[in-house]
């Protein structure tokens, strides 16, 4: 697990300041998508080896949601960006 995360708003911080939500590549199914799709979205997870994008919340810092791209083998952090701004097409 990465021990230091470089928050785009706060700078380098220890992972104790963050809460991890998990896979950032999941897409929420439509409300009427059916039981199987919802079951998969809520419970079934891959356990990827290598580069992986996750949602991290800077809960004890700026309280922004971030997307952290890290390597599950080497623990290297490749990119960190603000999740909401990325969705809006901004940089940050």
């Amino acid at each position, binding site marked *: 697990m990465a021990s230091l995360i470089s928050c785009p708003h706060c700078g380098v911080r220890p992972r*104790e300041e963050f809460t991890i939500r998990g896979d950032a590549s999941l897409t929420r199914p439509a409300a009427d998508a059916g039981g199987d799709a919802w079951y998969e979205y809520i419970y079934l997870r891959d356990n990827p080896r290598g580069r992986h994008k996750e949602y991290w919340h800077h809960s004890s810092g700026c309280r922004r949601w971030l997307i952290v791209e890290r390597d599950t083998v080497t623990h290297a952090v490749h990119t960190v960006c603000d999740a909401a701004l990325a969705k809006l097409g901004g940089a940050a």
Partner: protein
Amino acid sequence: MSERPEHKPALAGKATTEGSGIRLEPLPEGHLLHVMGAFDGDTLAESLTAAGLAKSAIQRAGYQQWYVTGDEILPPAQIALLADHLRGKGFVCDQSHGRIRIALSGFRALELLSQGTAVDLDPAAFPVGHSAVTLFGHISVQLTRTHATRFEFAALRSFAENLYDMLEHAALASA
């Protein structure tokens, strides 16, 4: 007898603690306004001046968020005046009752702070005026450098006494 709750300072029972090279003091429960908006710190400073709050300090508290702090208790009308100046751009939320400020100073302040927070406090990375939301131990705090060897904490009211005790313990242990 009034049925309205009476305001009692959270650190009323705490005295200033002084050790060698360290000084810890509860700050007056004056004002602490949480400001949110899609503007920059300069715009906020202009609005503060327009609302007669030029003396208040501005601390960055995350993306598009700031705390405006000072020792004076503000009348509601003055807070409303600031809200008027920011109307359409941002919002003001009075948190004077909700967050408590503590000052830590002296040449050993840095050493004591490094026991509780992982933020890089080197003057090059954390100059005077710089502010960060971080953890001190397990308590979420806003930490600001007000002078080379003076720092200010702002913590949630219910955590203030615990934080103060922790700092006091560390200050006396290092004396």
